[in-house]
């Protein structure tokens, strides 16, 4: 038994850990205001307060802490993308997850059990080869494996030999894994708050006032504040918040659904996903099987679940693992994803000089939490966009300098 628990157990009474301080009254002004108390906003607050000495920070969260997409994603962490810019960026994310528990003193349960993506067609094999070549060039742990290796990595998988969805091979990403999503946000919140960052839950931004090219005031339902710099990191509400700030973002919202079974003894070690079947599965530390897939086909800003998506995910899951038919589903939920045309995020400058963007995270936001927070904090602190996030600038859509991550994103998240 670890020492910390022993020490805890031998104390007489519970000494509160005080992870998240109660919401304080709003002050009139802050050095930095962060709109959105999800993983990204909290990570940025952490890096601002710990690495840049900026402690006068208000995190404004409409609902409860990290209750949006941070709470709803299926926790995949990986870097097997297609473009060099993305691979470089997400590779640093994976490595930051590697030390996060130690860095924060909070167990985020990063579990690098590897991600196996399946190919059921030659076209998919071609795209895997490309991702593997690009990944190897950028130095990430990714390789194309044949059907026999797939069987070794995932012994109970239905290979569907001779069938319509025969497994021809796979993309094996040994660096892929999962982490406990809530813990990531809580860990950042706890450590940021220790340095004086204020976390304001149940605080809705209702207007953003600017003069010339600078934001001057942020109006909330609990009062109006001034801030030298503003970071927008509002997940599914990014489009609406940008409108408050007075400019449009090239974002469309689609619901993304997921579901989870009752807990079972371990049988699935790796993350398994199939783009052709629009399904992926991962077994959590608790033993639940988390099942997810692609976004809903129609634009909608709603977190209501649908039945047909659940049927489709069940079909995909049972195609891959037919013996799961007796396993029972316990919960189903949805998030609102802010999708960009090239399936890549928007980070950096906005049309306003002191207003910074961390948006367009679609279905790939959780895994970027530490790295986005780190470099957005650096951007705000120095007023300069670091090279690693420069390719994700908003103006790339005007320049058509797009990052084609559609294929590397489908049903793998």
């Amino acid at each position, binding site marked *: 038994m670890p020492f910390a628990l022993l020490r805890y157990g031998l104390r007489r009474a519970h000494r509160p850990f005080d992870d*998240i301080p109660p919401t304080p009254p709003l002050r009139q002004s802050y050095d930095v205001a962060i709109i959105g108390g999800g993983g990204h906003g909290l990570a940025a607050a952490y890096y601002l307060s710990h690495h840049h000495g900026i402690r006068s920070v208000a995190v404004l969260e409409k609902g409860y802490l990290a209750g949006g997409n941070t709470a709803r994603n299926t926790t995949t962490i990986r870097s097997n993308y297609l473009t060099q810019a993305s691979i470089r960026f997400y590779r640093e994310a994976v490595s930051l997850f590697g030390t996060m528990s130690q860095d924060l003193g909070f167990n985020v349960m990063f579990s690098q059990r590897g991600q196996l993506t399946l190919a059921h067609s030659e076209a998919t094999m071609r795209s895997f080869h490309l991702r593997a070549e690009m990944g190897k060039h950028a130095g990430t742990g990714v390789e194309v494996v044949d059907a026999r290796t797939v069987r070794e990595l995932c012994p109970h998988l239905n290979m569907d030999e001779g069938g319509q969805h025969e497994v021809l091979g796979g993309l094996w990403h040994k660096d892929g894994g999962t982490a406990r999503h809530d813990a990531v946000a809580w860990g950042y919140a706890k450590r940021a708050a220790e340095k004086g960052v204020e976390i304001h839950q149940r605080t809705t931004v209702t207007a953003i006032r600017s003069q010339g090219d600078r934001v001057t005031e942020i109006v909330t339902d609990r009062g109006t504040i001034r801030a030298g710099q503003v970071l927008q990191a509002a997940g599914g509400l990014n489009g609406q918040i940008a409108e408050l700030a007075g400019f449009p973002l090239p974002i469309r919202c689609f619901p993304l659904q997921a579901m989870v079974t009752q807990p079972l003894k371990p049988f699935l070690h790796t993350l398994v996903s199939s783009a052709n079947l629009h399904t992926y599965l991962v077994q959590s530390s608790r033993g639940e099987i988390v099942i997810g897939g692609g976004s809903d086909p129609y634009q909608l800003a709603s977190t209501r679940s649908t039945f047909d998506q659940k049927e489709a995910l069940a079909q995909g899951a049972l195609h891959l693992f037919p013996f799961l038919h007796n396993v029972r589903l*316990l919960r*189903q939920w949805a998030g609102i994803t802010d999708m960009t045309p090239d399936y890549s995020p928007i980070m950096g400058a906005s049309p306003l000089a002191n207003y910074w963007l961390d948006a367009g995270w679609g279905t790939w936001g959780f895994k970027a939490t530490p790295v986005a927070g780190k470099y957005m904090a650096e951007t705000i602190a120095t007023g300069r966009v670091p090279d690693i996030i420069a390719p994700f600038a908003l103006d790339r859509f005007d320049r058509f300098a797009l990052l084609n991550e559609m294929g590397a994103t489908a049903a793998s998240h």
Partner: protein
Amino acid sequence: MPDTQRLPAPWGSRIDRARQLDFRFDGRSFSGHPGDTVASALVAQGRWVLSRSFKYHRPRGPMTFAGTDANTLVQIGPEPNVRADLRALEPGMEVSAQNTSHSAERDLNSLLGLFGRFMPVGFYYRSFFGPGKNSWLKLWEPIIRKSAGLGQIDPGQPPASYARRNLACDVLVVGAGPAGMAAATSAAAAGAEVVLVEADPETGGALTYGRNGQQALAQARAALEASGVRVLTGATCNGWYADNFLPVLQGSTLWRLRAAQVILATGTQDQPLVFRNNDLPGIVTASGVQRLMRHHAVRPGRRAVVVAGTPHGVDAAEDLAEAGVAIAAVLIPPEASLPAELRARLTGRGLRVLTEAHVTEARGKRHLSGLVAESPEGRETFECDLAVIDAGATPGYQLALHAGAKLGFDDARQSFTLSNLPEGLRLAGSVAGHHTPASVVRSGEIAGAEAARALGHEAPALSSLPDPEAAWHRTYPVPAASKAGRDFVDFDEDLQVKDIANAVADGYRELELVKRYSTVGMGPSQGRHSALATARIVARETGRQVGDIGITTARPPFGPEKLGLLAGPLREPYRLTAMHDWHRKAGAAMVAAGNWWRPLHYAGKAADPQAAIADEVRLVREGAGMLDVSTLGKLAVRGPDAGAFLDRIYTMAHAAQPVGRVRYCLMLNDMGSVIDDGVAWRMAGDDFYVTATTGAVDRVFTEMSLLNTQWRMQVDIQNVTSAFAAINLTGPKARAVLERLGGDIAVGAADFGFLEGRSGSIGGHPVRIMRIGFSGEVSYELHTPRSHGLALWQALLEAGAAVGLRPYGLEASRILRLEKGHIIIGQDTDALTTPEELDMGWALSKKKPYFLGKPALDKRREIGLTRRLCRFVLPVEAGRAVGESSLVLRQGQPVGFVTSVARSPTLGQVIGLAYAHPEDAVAGGTIRLRDRKGVERAAKVVAHAFYDPDNKRQEV
């Protein structure tokens, strides 16, 4: 072992005592009767411990006998997580406890309970990540994964068959208790088509196990039977989805039910009382003990204490007394508002009634042995082996909340309430707060009549009846945390009062955060017993009201549902061309293309398929071959605006396209990227026959239909893909084959030129022929009604026998097109490919003001090309390890990749297409490829088609 035994009739309405069923639990033999559940049979034989708790491995037994607690989850054969109190007993069942070491009765892991104080709420966030960087993954997670999880998965278990059926009705009534039966009967009487869904194996609800329900039950059933209502029993309505779509699970059938009106008569959910050791086996809800006696004739104990918080507890006490169970005491909590007449019923039987009494502790090891209570008479310990807890109930709110209803809290009655019901949804019975029997039934009649009236039927307007008993019902507070702990709030997750309070103290003040941090409500019973208690503790700890705290968002499903049921029969949809069987008989290797199957090659069992494929290529280059292209997408675009419509959809000019001509079609998306291609043949002024690629046609058809709706043009679009079989006949001798077959179409070069279309008859088969092809040779693409496909195929083969005509497959086709330099959309393009990158500027009309993607394309043109698709050649040896997706490098950086590559049998070289830097992608340029072995290769770029660059062969 607790002293339980069977009661004589009339107890036991569901069991057939005459027959005995044998089964096993944890390796020991048991028996029961038909009509028993697994749990009732075990309890009848004194076996209460069915499981061990999640964290501390405490012994757990059935609590509600209604399938709502996780204590009864067992493994039956290969099936994990079966609710033993719902599953009907079958002979020979192999039942075992889950998550135990040895057995439920003697679980070696129960030692974990001793270490409870070292496992505070959220303890896993504080520890388990050292000493090294990988300690969580390598050391701690495997231990936790092994100890977490309930059932075992057997990868070898056989498949089962599941059915999926659609059902539509006027009125759906959920719950066949007295209110639901009345609602269904009254809606049906008014003329509505009604479906009544009941989770129990029979209708009646509480009438089947409550006191004095028999007469009312018989009457309600008779009325229901006469009304023509369709009743589904053993069926759980498991969620509400938009527009009154409600899935219903019944055995191995999933009913997908759509109702115009929905009435929820879902009853209530008994709540446990929080006190130390409130999880001991032998502590049962009031309705649970009544079910056990009336349904299964099980006398659940020898000596009982009853906590009567509402009239149900009084009923249960009377039932127990009549069944011969000694009643140590009936405890009435201080907050109760039971009238004197009810208390008199108990004292009239000579029972000892203690008012203002509250339970502080239960005692016992593997089973309850005593209950400690405090009352004005002092603190007293009652020896007992059964405790019946009636602490009130919460409404069955789940489905209503799925539908968007609002949950409130009535402080006077200490009860959750539902409001803001959406249109087309009504409540009836106790879920709506009715408790007096007449009032309950009337609420059902009113809901049924209202639903019928909403559908246009005539139904009597009834007024509701007084409900004096409602005031006697309430729920009970959660006491402060017991110093010694083990006062459980959430049985599934082993959470005690202090755990919830400590979660709040740790900073998790919002209910959602409390849930996520402590995992309260996340177990198999999904908060049915813990939600109210949690809300009370969080309210107390944060100084807010219970109504402000509420419960976490309720989402479907209502109860656990099998993946097999959701997935249905799992039949893979597939599509076969008219010639499919012929291909198979001819030894073709088939390959899946979406839902279609296509011949890859006809090598049969030949040792070297590559040689056979090369033969097929030679066949087309030197003689004649034919390819089944039936899977091609085919669209009929007709109407006065057809030409104008296609002008907007595709990049070339179609409004001006002459009748009889075939024109290439290129489709872009709103980013200006290439997404599909095909051809359009203008068969008449207002009639175009359009092809699309196999994989994209459904998308193209959907997009066209959507745009047609927006643009409101005079166009009709039909997807006729499966109506036609199609054959591409190609090669220098192709024309001779058609001439030999004969018909009313002149196929000579002078009469039927390249990129023209003709319709008529060939060899007696109606055909549409286009002079188009992918191979670079003279080609005729014959489309014929599907019913003629096979006959035309065979007629062609026969007519072509003399010139050596044979079929070829997809592999040869890919090589042929590559030799000719044609691209395949999706293989040689990606999400950002523009026509200019493909050197296909010729396909962009310069005159049209608009086509899909033109604005973006114009903008992208200003930026200039960043890459270009080029044709490259390599000597065979050097190109051996160059594969599709090999990178194209420039100064060590990737600038593109190979999209297609093959060894050309015709040219004796490796040829391919690749994206490269625009400066390199010019005739005579050199590109550097990194092959699969990591070796860099320099390849020469050629400007023109590898084969027949001047098109002398295909256009003759």
